[in-house]
């Protein structure tokens, strides 16, 4: 029987005595020696002074109230929560890579530049692109870079194109990134097979279309089989095709976006290449382009010339910089380590097992009572799949959200819920390759048990979870202006 740690751990602010936090006499006098009185801090600094053992106990307890890949399956769709090898952590802790200042000259950091250069070459090889920038700090920033490349490209060509097309199954970041680039977002509906329909696409593509942002396989876990025709439609119109690499884990080593006609891609190193997600980040979202767009990449990129790795700053149409320095190097380093340990054969095997695991779980879950595959067919899925619990909800009153909460009670994480937004009562499941048959069988049996409970004891589900650190949250409460509390300082206006 699973039961998550429940320490009822107070906040650090309750662990020790905190006074008003203002500077005491001695501190104030020392500050006044070099600062005019009006520039000395007045408001209290209410941070506790705790012995180190108390800090360690506090965060050890908090860690026990948290679930991660190290504890078991974490099947969030499109998030690729796979095992994070410890060798990557070991490498990222090597002083000669970790303690390098970004202010050092290139001849002093040849090892760093070699990692960046080689990783860029490998990413080009795996995606079929010609040049990469490692600067974007996450997938969404990669998308932003891609969108700006489109913007600059048409500006240089003297074409006025202000629309970007995204399918209705797209990740929310796609339309948000397009908007940040100053584009109008045109959404196209997926067809009954869950795909971008070339006929519908032709209807919306026009002289204002800068490009299409597409995930392939898409968020329904389906390979966009008309991708070549889609690419033709855009290219005939002079538009560009952007690849959202969130789902690259399904095809890496087997098929390449570059061969499908994509002009710009981003990859998520924290997904496909196994760097830890850290509770929400850091990640890394390198962007690759075909050679005709090389001059638009963020600067600098790494080149190898005259026996030395160098920064190249002089890209003629560069969109500029998106990061203070060169991106999340220590994340890129972990990804490089992972890739070298797998080798191309290992990467191929990994992605095919990810797809295999997904289909195995799909078969088991989609035949459960009240659960239907989305779209409603038994086609092979790729690394993830989506089911709808609409029937279950109609028949029992139990929602996808309720089911997800009850799944937690069995000691495993829940899938993504209510996404893609076109699927009613959606569960989006991505088991990844780093779970075995027993894990999958167990997960399927948990979902099965929960679904049975929905029919027999719906109250049990609606009142779940009960075995987690806390019971079901009243989430709206924390977001209402009158009851929200985003920090300890909130509402304390005495300074």
């Amino acid at each position, binding site marked *: 029987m699973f039961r998550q740690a429940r320490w009822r751990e107070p906040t650090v*602010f309750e662990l020790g005595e*905190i006074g008003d936090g203002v*500077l005491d006499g001695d501190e104030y006098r020392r500050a006044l020696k070099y600062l005019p009185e009006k*520039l000395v801090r007045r408001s209290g*600094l209410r941070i506790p*002074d705790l012995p180190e053992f108390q800090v360690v106990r506090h965060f050890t307890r908090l860690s026990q*109230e*948290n*679930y991660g890949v*190290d*504890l078991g399956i974490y099947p969030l769709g499109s998030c690729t929560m796979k*095992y*994070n090898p410890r*060798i990557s952590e070991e*490498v990222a802790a*090597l002083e000669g890579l970790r303690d390098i*200042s*970004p202010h050092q000259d290139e001849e002093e950091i040849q*090892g760093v530049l070699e*990692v960046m250069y080689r990783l860029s070459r490998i990413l080009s*090889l795996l995606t079929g692109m010609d040049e990469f920038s490692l600067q974007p*700090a996450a*997938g969404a*920033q990669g998308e932003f870079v891609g*969108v700006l490349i489109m913007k600059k490209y048409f500006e240089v060509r003297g074409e006025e194109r202000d629309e970007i097309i995204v399918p209705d199954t797209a990740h*929310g*970041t796609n339309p948000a990134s397009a908007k*940040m680039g*100053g584009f109008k977002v045109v959404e196209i509906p997926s067809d009954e097979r869950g795909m971008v329909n070339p006929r519908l696409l032709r209807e919306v593509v026009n002289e204002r279309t800068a490009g299409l942002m597409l995930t392939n396989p898409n968020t329904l876990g389906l390979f966009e089989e008309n991708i070549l025709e889609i690419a033709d439609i855009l290219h005939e119109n002079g538009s560009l095709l952007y690849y959202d690499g969130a789902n690259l884990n399904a095809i890496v080593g087997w098929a390449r976006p570059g061969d499908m006609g994509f002009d710009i891609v981003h990859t998520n190193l924290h997904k496909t290449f196994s760097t830890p*997600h850290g*509770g*929400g*980040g*850091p990640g890394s979202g390198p962007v690759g382009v075909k050679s005709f767009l090389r001059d638009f990449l963020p600067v600098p990129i790494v080149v190898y010339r005259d026996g030395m790795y160098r920064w190249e700053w002089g890209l003629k149409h560069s969109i500029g910089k998106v990061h*203070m*320095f*060169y991106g999340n190097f220590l994340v890129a380093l972990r990804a490089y380590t992972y890739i*070298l*340990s797998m*080798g*191309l054969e290992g990467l191929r*095997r990994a992605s*095919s097992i990810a797809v*295999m*695991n997904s289909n*195995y779980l799909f*078969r088991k879950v989609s035949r459960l009572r009240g659960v239907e595959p989305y779209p409603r067919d038994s086609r092979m899925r790729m690394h993830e799949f989506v089911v709808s619990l609409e029937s279950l909800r109609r028949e029992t009153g139990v929602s996808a959200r309720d089911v997800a909460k009850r799944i*937690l009670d069995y000691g495993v994480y829940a899938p*993504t819920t209510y996404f893609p937004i076109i699927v009613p009562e959606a569960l989006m499941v991505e088991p990844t390759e780093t779970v075995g048959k027993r894990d999958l069988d167990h997960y399927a049996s948990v979902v099965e048990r929960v679904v049975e409970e929905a029919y027999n004891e719906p109250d049990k589900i609606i009142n779940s979870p009960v075995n*987690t650190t*806390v*019971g079901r949250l009243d*989430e709206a409460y*924390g*977001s209402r202006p009158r009851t929200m509390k*985003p*920090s*300890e*300082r*909130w509402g304390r206006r005495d300074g």
Partner: protein
Amino acid sequence: MTFLPSPSDVEAILNELGFKDLDSFMESILGGFITEIPGEDLPSMDQPSLLRYMEDLSKRNRVYSPEKVYAGWGVEPAFVYPATKYLVGRGEFLTSYTPYQPEMSQGMLQALYEYQSVMAELLGLEVVNSSMYDGASALAEAILLAYRVAGRPRILLPKTLPPHLSRVVDTYLYGAGLETVNYEDPTINSDSLSMVESLLREGVSALVFEFPSSLGYLYEDVDKLADLVHSYGALFIVYTDLWSTPIVAPPGDIGADVAVAEGQPMGLYMGAGGPLLGVFAVRGEQRLIRNMPGRLIGETRTMDGDKAYTMILQTREQHIRRANATSNICTNEALSAVQVLINMLIMGRGGLVSKSLEMMELAHRLADMLERYGGSQPSSSPFHRRFTMVFDDVDLNKLYDRLRGLGYLPGNLSGYGLSMNINFFHTVEAIEEFASSVGVVIEDVQTG
């Protein structure tokens, strides 16, 4: 293939799916899209040889002693306590993700709530999000927030804003189609206030102010500047140095609507420049909070009335609001935030204040010593732990290179001089040694 399931598992599942091997399985889905990728150059390496390769590679980088580094724009040597390193390495934190199921992710949520709260104390503002990518993109997003709130497509930026910030701001504003106008920093040019006022009169969404500036200086009449900005309906965005905040008036005390900073100096490795930590804070006003980018953690309650934590105000975010979200950010730097939180808690309030005082004292001591070698500063404003110098008849590039030859990373160069930054590791002995090295080099450069 140690990171993958056993061959017998794979075989059993393939059997159930009706395939004899992974090749035929993938072919049945991808068919003609399968490409032969040349893999000779990418064999797999076992862990011992991989580690050896990486160790060799790491030796091809020069590692500076942290007390010999005076460069400090954005990233500097920071001490990471062993306990911090241990705690953020715990798999429950390291291998989790955005807490979409808060009931099972309370540990991360509470840690991020505590991060927001500790950062709110430092900055003197009530609302801090749970992280942006870095200080530069945080600054850019602060400007985008100001535009959403104030609606005027023009922004005022200080002329002294260094490239690691300004180039990123330019990129983000290019996307949004906003225009920037530069003003003279009042710590460099005392006439700047009248110029600022005439620019404000033309209508702007925000004025970005560095306090302290990247050159190091603290503008004494910063409160008047804030009032001036507010009187024209614009937002006052302050980019700050977190190490100054324990003793110098923090953004909240000087009228900031939005405060942004780079969090790395409080406890992240330099990592050749990343990952970093973008700190983003606003005053506790609903119109600012509703327009904030990024994830925000808040206290809430369970259905049974127990205290708990969750992501709040998610309707601002891309996964709900899509094209109308306040930002596209999804993955952020959560673990960097937790690392900085733990590191700061180990120091505690007392440690933060005394370190901040010590840095200020060392910086002034160093400035005094360097002035004896003919150093002069471009500003007479007060400074905290960073200052800028030029030396009579000395080519700064030459000085910089010579000092580098002596094992120093001597600072950041700009048109205003050499900016030097006191970091966590500096001691009286270290700066005395540095000053005398500067003295020797200067004499050499002047005579030679």
